[in-house]
């Protein structure tokens, strides 16, 4: 019996009364997925690493981040950040600048020279074909698990689209090299400048390795039927972006017309502006609906790129020293699948544009012809089933060659998923952890009384004039204090921050603090739910209790 300390008539404490019997529901601590995690192509534990940034543990944040993505400095610059679009904070003031925080962590890691630990190499060996984001991500995940990795790349340098498709003003080459070198330093058997892998070579690689991951990207430019690519005034966008600046200068005239509205079109247009060219983008989509990220379009406009929206080129012909493009306005209808659309030319809306160079940037296709009869295709990509396995057992595929989801971080995510599947297949008895099937934490689960309104800490851009003079990076990073302040804006949806609110708000003293968490005393908890209501992160919920 709990004796009362005071030697009076009343001699027991109320702890002898088990008020837990009143209860019909019990609080349950369960870290639930945040909306950002659900939206993240690499399924990164965003709330967790942002809390580490907030607490000043940048190394810890980097370790958490790189569990899923070996490229935080790269993704922090170029990711299309669907996490931010999903962020619950937008319902209060503005989304958390997750991308800028990721860059802060990635840049800190590069500056500090943090390296990945490389476990000893096992005998089991995996061939990765393609050194772009998907291939490198897979190689990294496989090496982390101790597999031997052989990486085959047709180019002389690694990086794929990140190096040959994204200009340096968006992604500094030192950053790209730094994050790639950190992966190869884990001990990857590199084969650079090899011939493209055809069906026969695929067979050979499968025989000499325990598994093969195919991530050759989408290297074939889509072609405009109305344009004769043999003309000297037509330059393919992929060739243009891959070329050194001197060659870009040689191949373009004073007036450049870029055809397309995606990221590649913006990259071409803004690169051409840096060469001093006058640039017009001709896009099928109406204004505000370009497939490129909104920020890319805004920055292109700032840099003096002209836009002709909702129109297409019908034909182009040389005229004097230049080219005339015969164009027409169109009605644009997006389709269901990514990249699908239909257009209807509008009668009597013809117009002309004058140029010296035309650079079509309307997308790339995977080159599937080399594996015809060997690999099944599904539309324009290699067919893959669950876990990214192709029609050939032991052969996996991911990235642009296997999917129409064409953002860099989506490729990184596919590389991770395929590597996880390969590892599971090659390690008998290695059960994969079950997916967290819990529902995402919605905004109404966050008690915003504990979150003060605070606008976003924005990254600054270099002055426009300075931007156009070089290919130096446009976006300037957050400083350490800004990063801490931005990290503090995170609601930490579904991830406990150990604030003790649940403990402090219990009227029944039924919650005990532990070293790293809390426990509910079911003898006394009456099931009121105050702890859940006052939780600032939505990481507790009430669960029906039928035990008593």
């Amino acid at each position, binding site marked *: 019996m*709990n004796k*009362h*300390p*005071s030697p*009076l*008539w*009343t*001699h*027991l*404490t*109320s*702890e*002898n*009364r*088990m*008020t837990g019997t*009143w*209860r019909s529901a019990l609080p349950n601590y369960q870290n639930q997925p945040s909306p950002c995690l659900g939206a993240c192509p690499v399924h990164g534990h965003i709330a967790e690493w942002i809390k580490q940034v907030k607490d000043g543990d940048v190394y810890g944040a980097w370790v958490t981040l790189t569990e899923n993505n070996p490229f935080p400095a790269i993704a922090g610059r170029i990711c299309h950040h669907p996490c931010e679009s999903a962020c619950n904070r937008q319902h209060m003031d503005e989304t958390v600048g997750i991308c800028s925080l990721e860059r802060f962590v990635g840049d800190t890691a590069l500056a500090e020279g943090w390296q990945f630990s490389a476990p000893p190499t096992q005998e089991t060996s995996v061939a990765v074909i393609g050194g772009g984001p998907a291939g490198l991500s897979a190689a990294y995940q496989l090496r982390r698990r101790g597999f031997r990795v052989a990486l085959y790349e047709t180019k002389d340098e690694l990086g794929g689209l990140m190096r040959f498709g994204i200009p340096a003003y968006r992604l500094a080459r030192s950053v790209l090299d730094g994050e790639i070198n950190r992966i190869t330093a884990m001990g990857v058997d590199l084969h650079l400048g090899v011939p493209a892998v055809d069906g026969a070579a695929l067979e050979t690689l499968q025989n000499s390795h325990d598994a093969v991951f195919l991530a050759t990207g989408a290297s074939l430019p889509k072609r405009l039927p109305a344009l004769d690519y043999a003309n000297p005034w037509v330059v393919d966008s992929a060739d243009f972006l891959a070329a050194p600046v001197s060659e870009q200068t040689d191949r373009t005239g004073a007036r450049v017309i870029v055809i397309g509205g995606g990221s590649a079109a913006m990259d071409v247009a803004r690169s051409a502006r840096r060469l001093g060219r006058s640039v017009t983008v001709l896009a099928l989509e109406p204004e505000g609906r370009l497939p490129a990220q909104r920020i890319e379009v805004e920055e292109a406009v700032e840099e003096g790129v002209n836009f002709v929206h909702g129109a297409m080129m019908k034909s182009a012909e040389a005229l004097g020293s230049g080219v005339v493009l015969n164009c027409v306005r169109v009605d644009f209808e997006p389709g269901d699948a990514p990249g699908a659309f239909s257009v209807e030319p509008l009668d009597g809306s013809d117009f002309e544009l004058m140029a010296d160079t035309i650079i079509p940037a309307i997308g790339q296709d995977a080159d599937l012809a080399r594996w015809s009869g060997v690999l099944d295709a599904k539309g324009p990509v290699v067919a893959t089933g669950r876990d990214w396995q192709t029609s050939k057992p032991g052969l996996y595929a991911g990235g642009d060659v296997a999917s129409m989801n064409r953002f860099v971080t989506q490729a990184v995510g596919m590389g991770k998923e395929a590597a996880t599947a390969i590892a599971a297949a090659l390690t008998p008895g290695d059960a994969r952890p079950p997916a967290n099937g819990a529902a995402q934490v919605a905004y109404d689960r966050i008690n915003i*009384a*504990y979150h*003060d309104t605070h606008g976003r800490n924005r990254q600054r851009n270099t002055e426009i004039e300075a931007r156009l003079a070089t290919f130096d990076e446009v976006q300037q990073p957050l400083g350490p204090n800004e990063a801490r302040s931005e990290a503090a804006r995170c609601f930490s949806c579904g991830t406990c921050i150990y*604030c*003790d*609110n649940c403990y*402090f*708000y*219990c*009227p*029944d*003293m*039924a919650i005990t603090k532990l070293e790293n968490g809390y426990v509910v*005393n079911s*003898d*006394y908890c*009456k*099931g*009121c*739910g*105050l702890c*859940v*209501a*006052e939780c*600032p992160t939505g990481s507790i919920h009430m669960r029906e209790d039928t035990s008593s």
Partner: protein
Amino acid sequence: MEMTKYRDNGQFCSGHVACAGCAEALSMRVILNAVGEDTVGVVAPSCTAVILGGHPMSSAKIPVLHGTLESAAASASGVKRALKAQGRDDTTVLCLAGDGGTYDIGLQALSSAAERNEDILYVCFDNEGYMNTGGQKSSSTPHMATTGSTPLGKATHKKNLIEILAAHRIPYIATASPSHLSDLAAKVEKAKSIRGTKVIIVLIPCLPGWGVADNAAVKTARLAVEAGAFPLLEIEDGVHYSLTVAEKTRPIDAYLAEQKRYRRLSDEDRAALQSEVDDAWSRLLARAGKDLNA
């Protein structure tokens, strides 16, 4: 808003019989721990008496004297004087009563104790009615709130006890809310350090009495503070006013909507209540401002 923090030394025990989610039990937890072990409690008949008592058990670790409804402050004065006679002048006497025992039935005793400036810490758990006896109106019940005895809404205003107490020129008066627990603990600690009569009025949204959800007492109290319907303040020596939460950040609507006792209100009623809150708030600002200019 700052995160919550206060000391809990186990002065209030689990197993008490307050309703699930009761903000009074929550506030009592903070107060009993802030006031410390060297305390004697004096309790008027009220929810507090039920929560603390239940012979042969007590949920408080301190000794508690259960008095009568009209005499809580007088009983506390007597206990304090007896302790002083025993040479235990440092022992705090904590008087706990509801709004019925404070605004109505115990007002004479409280007024007399305050006039004599008895060295007691008096806490009123203000749930704006006789909620323990089935929910009748008290003089603390606000305008238009329905209770068992005001089924169409109370026709008159809530008694302004704060002004009454200020008129006694006692050293310390404060209001507090279960939505601001660190502030409640700080006010108790401050009051404990002052000699003379100290009164703290804590707003207690009563779950059954106000028609508030089991998990929403704290939220309701927070809305009251944010709407300025229950301003958090301190008054020293009856004249020096200071606002703990200096801004009114939302209209009264969300506060009213959280409670079934206001569900009969028309739009005009709500507008009338809003203008009452606005008027009271400007008067309060004027008092706090006057002090700044003094």
